[in-house]
């Protein structure tokens, strides 16, 4: 298929409005196979404005007189407005964007054409072989799986039972195990009707089952949509805002996810138990819990490299279906099919952890924002497809660049790193009381609030830290008591 078939108008004169803070940009608008370009006239700055078409979540067109307006709502929650000369041009451009932004073929997507300078194909694709988080000294393990296929006949599986027995046997003598089922007891039981279910107590001696229902799928997507809607309304009264914030339930989901992760981590750390986490498929809420539990317990997963490994291992290789879940973000009018912001929920929980332990994560908010943006639309191949198998078939690893090699370039570091990081060998137990949780303004209000004061303050923090390193020639000094109060 040729992209040119989908492009109805090559170019038009347009003005781009990027929100209340940024000045408007005027120039020649141009649609290409993967991008929307705006090239300012020769008198203006020579910089091209570039938007990956894949990042368009919804498009709205209006015409009046002999011009038109296109409103683009992007997957990173940005809202852009294009005022275009010519009715025909407006309609054609809108149709082209619509067609090109919703192409489903993976191998014609931009990552297969993206060849940035300074990066070599194949770099940073190879991490250590996947392994679960494993405490070598204490011998407790954290496992994840999908639900057992008990079915209506209450089937048993000797090999599965033996496997879980072996897990306990491989731990210290007398070790116990907890199965954290991320569905309610009732949902888990109902799953038997469709061939699934949950572990029967009698069949798995030594294992105790706990149900911690986490929201997933459609309701989670709707929660996200409602929150983003509320965040876009600058005129609303305080009452309306607070009731929408309560009503969308997003922070309640954050609280549940963090509490369940704390439960799993606590089982390992304080009770020396082995933990198995699963829901239904083991590719959504399961991953939120296992990856957060590792951040809580394992200091090495809190470094820049360790966190990338964690995402690679616990999300990408574990088969979180990114392509399905992130096909649309919060603005799409299309009826959601498989979309759900599971990965965003994880990132939000990490952000909350970072707020409560601001010195203990090597990466900063910028890293979490970058992961959100790239999961939904990216020139890199890392978040393409739904599983390892699909990635193999599409030869993603040999034909696209890895996001990690992009992020690990030197010029990106200041945006992504936490200047105040000091390795913390202890477990991080966050407070999950609602008074301790906050709306992630840096993400949900990224494009609506003026960023200057907080960015300037952040610059100042960097400056103080750099001064400190210059004068001291060393890491910032932090006493042990400041690591955990």
């Amino acid at each position: 298929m040729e992209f040119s078939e989908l492009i109805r108008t090559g170019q038009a004169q347009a003005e781009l409005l990027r929100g209340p803070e940024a000045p408007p940009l005027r120039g020649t608008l141009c649609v290409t196979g993967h991008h929307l370009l705006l090239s300012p006239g020769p008198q203006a700055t020579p910089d091209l404005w570039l938007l990956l078409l894949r990042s368009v979540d919804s498009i709205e067109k209006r015409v009046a007189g002999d011009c038109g307006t296109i409103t683009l709502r992007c997957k990173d929650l940005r809202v852009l407005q294009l005022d275009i000369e010519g009715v025909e041009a407006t309609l054609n451009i809108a149709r082209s964007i619509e067609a090109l932004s919703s192409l489903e073929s993976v191998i014609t997507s931009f990552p297969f054409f993206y060849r940035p300078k300074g990066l070599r194909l194949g770099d940073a694709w190879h991490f250590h072989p996947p392994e679960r988080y494993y405490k070598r000294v204490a011998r407790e393990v954290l496992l994840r799986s999908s639900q057992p296929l008990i079915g209506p006949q209450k089937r048993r599986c000797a090999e599965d039972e033996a496997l879980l027995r072996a897990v306990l046997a491989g731990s210290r003598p007398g070790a116990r195990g907890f199965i954290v089922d991320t569905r309610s007891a009732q949902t888990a039981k109902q799953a038997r009707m469709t061939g699934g279910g949950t572990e029967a107590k009698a069949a798995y001696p030594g294992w105790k089952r706990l149900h911690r229902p986490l929201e997933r799928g459609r309701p989670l997507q709707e929660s996200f949509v409602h929150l983003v809607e509320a965040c876009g309304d600058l005129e609303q009264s305080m009452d309306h805002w607070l009731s929408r914030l309560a009503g969308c339930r997003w922070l309640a989901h954050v609280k549940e996810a963090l509490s369940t992760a704390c439960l799993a981590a606590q089982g390992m750390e304080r009770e020396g138990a082995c933990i198995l986490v699963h829901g239904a498929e083991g590719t959504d809420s399961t991953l939120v819990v296992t990856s957060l539990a590792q951040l809580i317990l394992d200091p090495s997963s809190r470094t820049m490299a360790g966190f990338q490994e964690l995402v690679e291992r616990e999300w990408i290789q574990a088969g979180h279906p990114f392509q399905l879940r992130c096909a649309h973000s919060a603005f799409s009018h299309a009826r959601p099919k498989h979309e759900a912001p599971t990965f965003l929920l994880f990132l939000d929980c990490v952000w909350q952890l970072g707020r409560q332990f601001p010195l203990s994560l090597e990466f900063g908010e910028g890293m979490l924002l970058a992961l959100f943006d790239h999961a939904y639309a990216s020139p890199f191949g890392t978040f393409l497809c739904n599983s390892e198998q699909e990635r193999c078939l599409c030869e993603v690893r040999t034909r696209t660049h890895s996001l990690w090699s992009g992020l690990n370039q030197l010029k990106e570091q200041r945006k992504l790193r936490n200047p105040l990081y000091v390795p913390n060998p202890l477990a991080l137990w966050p407070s999950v009381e609602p008074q301790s949780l906050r709306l992630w303004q840096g993400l949900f209000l990224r494009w609506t609030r003026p960023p200057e004061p907080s960015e300037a303050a952040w610059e100042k923090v960097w400056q103080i830290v750099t001064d400190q390193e210059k004068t001291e020639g060393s890491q910032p000094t932090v006493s042990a008591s400041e690591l955990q109060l």
Partner: protein
Amino acid sequence: MEHIRTTKVEQVKLLDRFSSSNKALTGTLYLTATHLLFIDFHQKETWILHHHIASVEKLALTTSGCPLVIQCKNFRTVHFIVPRERDCHDIYNSLLQLSKQAKYEDLYAFSYNPKQNDSERLRGWQLIDLAEEYQRMGVPNSNWQLSDANRDYKICETYPKELYVPRIASKPIIVGSSKFRSKGRFPVLSYYHQSKEAAICRCSQPLSGFSARCLEDEHLLQAISKANPANHYMYVVDTRPRLNAMANRAAGKGYENEDNYSNIRFQFVGIENIHVMRSSLQRLLEVSGSRGLSVGDLYSGLQSSGWLRHVQAVLGAAVVLAKAVTTESASVLVHCSDGWDRTSQVCSLGSLLLDPYYRTVRGFMVLIEKDWISFGHKFSERCGHLDGDPKEVSPVFTQFLECVWHLTEQFPQAFEFNEAFLLQIHEHIHSCQFGNFIGNCQKEREELKLKEKTYSLWPFLLEDRVKYLNPLYQPQAQEFAVLEPNTVSFNFKFWRNMYHQFDRTLHPRQSVFNIIANMNEQNKQLENDIKDLESKATNE
């Protein structure tokens, strides 16, 4: 003390109200003349000043003992379990007596002795000098003068003696106007903006009823307009909701009729009264203090309490003031009913937006002395220092501090002081340890001889200045000359560090703020060392 029957109880348990595991610390409870003290088995001390106690409650006896719940004005809540009911009863009764004083002379400030001599104490009181402050603003000048009309508190008991008024306003005009205003609180200068030549003035509501007029009052307002050479119209901002102001007309009070005053632009900004604010905060604390709270409960509680809506309204009114002065060079007259609650909030916040000086440690002290203490915000009644009418108690000053906190959150580099400074000031409006906030107006303070018998808080805060500094402060930054806060709803957050300041389990486990402050301090130290060494090297 005659109120203390039991001075020491052992094996008392202190419960953590937010811990899910019902953790308790065991220790010994001591009752002194001024404090309740709990020392746990780690030898950690918890001091509770009797004046901070808002309520004491003895709950039904349980198997482990008798629960005693103490709620404090600084938002500390402690839950003790006393093994024997008799002890619990004794402590309960003593605290009831000790936490409510009948006379000013029994307040802590009159016995507090920080080991300073008389001249040190006097110097402490002279640290903040309002005459100096008016000079800094640029008055007196050709348009504004110091009036001696209130020299003996004759015209207005609740105003200070030194008042600045338009030069063309004669004494009969002032006297006439004061008779037409609630409690005699006639229009006077609160803040003068030197480069715009515009003034923020304050007063109480006019006694206009449905149709009454007062020529002197009309003249005084006109004089304020004329004292501004840049702009001949002025704004009159009534900080009350329109309905409340209209209801006041039936009682012979009310608001200015635009037809009777030349060149005024009148507007309401809709801030609710002290009773609404009191129950709003009460409701908020009930919600946020409950155990096992869900996220939904917290946010619907925040909504139904209305607290953040009120904070937004107060800050919104201050923005109106600052805009009128900066964009139109217009003067503004602010009032509410009596002109000592909402008016103090709005005038002081407006000045804070306009003038970077008030965002320094010292400037903020001056601001509080000027718009709150000297202009007669009734601290003793609003804070319930003495056993009095509970309907007079209201968190008006707390709300002001919260507005300032919201500004520090929105402009992290515009303030010299930090959150700890605001919390410390809040601590002391209730502690009655220092004389500043005792009494309801300057006349009363003079009668109490506070400057002879008590100490001022400010020198003690200045001594600890380092603790209260904001490491990110950029005093020279031009973009922070005038603050233009965005009052969109999502910029307002629950102030956890105020309302849960003692619930440590709810707080971040690490503080960015302390780390940066330490680094800054170390950097400065090293820079000084380098300078020292350099100068030594050049001298040799």
